[in-house]
């Protein structure tokens, strides 16, 4: 199965008559590393919610790993945006263990195997030494790594990241993308961001979203696409990375 995420003509939103994303086509191949870029309010998070099955689209079809989004949910590692200065009394280890909840059950404790897997994934993200620390004491970049470790603890097929570099400072961004590239050997990665600087050479594909989204970008000229959909020009002219803009309903 090559296409592991397939959206066709998806329109979704929260209030009737006011779609946040409109007529979206998106297909993600196995082992792709796709960055979807768009402005705030452009529908990035909404798109993620549709893929995760948290939001049922008004129209169109969603297929993830060959089945419905809800059924595929447990196979997706979701990494939400790090919210700075939101204190919570919990240790790093306990956060990563949350990624093992689906393998455990109500009225059961986490097993030694769960703890071992959590530990392995913390080490994988270079934050194993922080396991016993409080989450509040971590920097934004460290928190980000912990949340990725949590997502990986469930052995997902797909990693979905919401604004992953927003909290990572520029100096450590390279090593951050190195880790993602490493993970990408086994796992399909899809990230959404409003930050053009989030683009790295490791990313294999780029799409733009601003309510609509166009795939099959190769049939269109990058520049005209950029103008029509408000994609940042410097990104388009960046070169090297195949670029596409998602959505086909050209209105507005």
């Amino acid at each position, binding site marked *: 199965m090559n296409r592991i995420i397939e959206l066709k003509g998806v329109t979704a939103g*929260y209030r009737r008559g006011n779609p946040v994303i409109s007529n979206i086509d998106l297909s993600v191949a196995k082992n792709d590393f796709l960055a979807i870029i768009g402005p705030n309010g452009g529908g990035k998070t909404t798109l993620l919610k549709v893929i*995760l099955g*948290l939001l049922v689209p008004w129209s169109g079809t969603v297929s993830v790993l060959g089945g419905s989004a809800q059924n595929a*949910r*447990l196979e*997706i590692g*979701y990494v*939400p945006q790090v919210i700075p200065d939101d*204190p*919570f*009394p*919990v*240790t790093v280890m*306990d*956060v990563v*263990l*949350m*990624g093992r*909840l*689906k393998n*455990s059950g*109500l*009225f059961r*404790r*986490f097993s030694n195997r769960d703890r071992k897997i959590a530990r392995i994934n913390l080490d994988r993200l270079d934050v194993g030494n922080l396991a016993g620390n*409080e989450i*509040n004491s971590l920097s934004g970049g460290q928190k980000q790594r912990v949340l990725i470790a*949590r997502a990986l603890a*469930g052995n997902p097929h797909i990693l979905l990241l919401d604004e992953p570099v927003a909290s990572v400072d520029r100096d450590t961004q390279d090593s951050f993308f190195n880790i993602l590239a490493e993970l990408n050997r086994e796992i399909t990665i899809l990230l959404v961001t409003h930050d053009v600087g989030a683009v790295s050479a490791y990313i294999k594909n780029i799409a733009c979203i601003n309510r609509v989204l166009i795939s099959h970008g190769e049939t269109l000229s990058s520049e005209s696409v950029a103008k029509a959909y408000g994609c940042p020009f410097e990104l388009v002219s960046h070169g090297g990375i195949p670029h596409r803009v998602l959505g086909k309903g050209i209105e507005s």
Partner: protein
Amino acid sequence: MINALGYTFMQHAVIISLLGSVACGIIGTLVTVNRMSALAGSIAHASFGGLGLAYFMGFSPLMGATGFAAVSAIGMTVVTSGNRVKTDTVMAAMWATGMAAGLIFIKLSGTYSANLMSWLFGSLLAVSASDITYAAILDIVILIVITGLYKEFLAVSFDREFSLLQGVPTNLIRGIFLILTALTAVLLMKITGLIMVIAMLAIPAAIAEMYTGSLWKMMILASIMAAVFNLVGLALAWMLNLPPGAVIILIAAFAYGAALAIERIRSGTA
């Protein structure tokens, strides 16, 4: 003060203060980390309608309040699984509706002032044996539920969406949490009174949050804090002949102010 412990009513007051601290510390911690004190307040005040109804119909006020609190907690679970704006409005409406219904029922029952005052401001020195049984059962239920579902409560409090994606029944966990909050609020009404329930849920947990790095430690410290406030408040109120509920709250507020000041100084010098 030691002599006072010879009185049954004082023994009851001490026992319910200690039992109440357990529920207060555990549930208060969850209310605090979920930033849901307004929701807890709303459920507590809605239960006042049940109290009034119980007086009017002539059944146990404790059961009336418990029933109303549980029903409003379930109602809030259903409503708050939807959108935020509606939640806020429903919360405010439920808060006031419960109070209004309670006042009217109590008035109609003809026992207006005495009952009203005792539930609004607490009646720590008039605790019955059945109140103590209620507190003991509630503590046991809370301890079983929270130890059995600790990892789920932690995960849902920390990140509800992620928990849902992990297959955790988040609405069920939330519903259980709100019902336990409602029952705890009813118990605390006996101690500090309805008006001060939120403070008792919020303050010990808020202080504990400053000094602990995990949820269970916070629950334990908050319970100890609540016990200290309750007992010191009770003793002071006895010696000074003041209403215990109010004294307990003032001590808690003073401790919270001191904790905040200490933290300010510490972070200022760091």
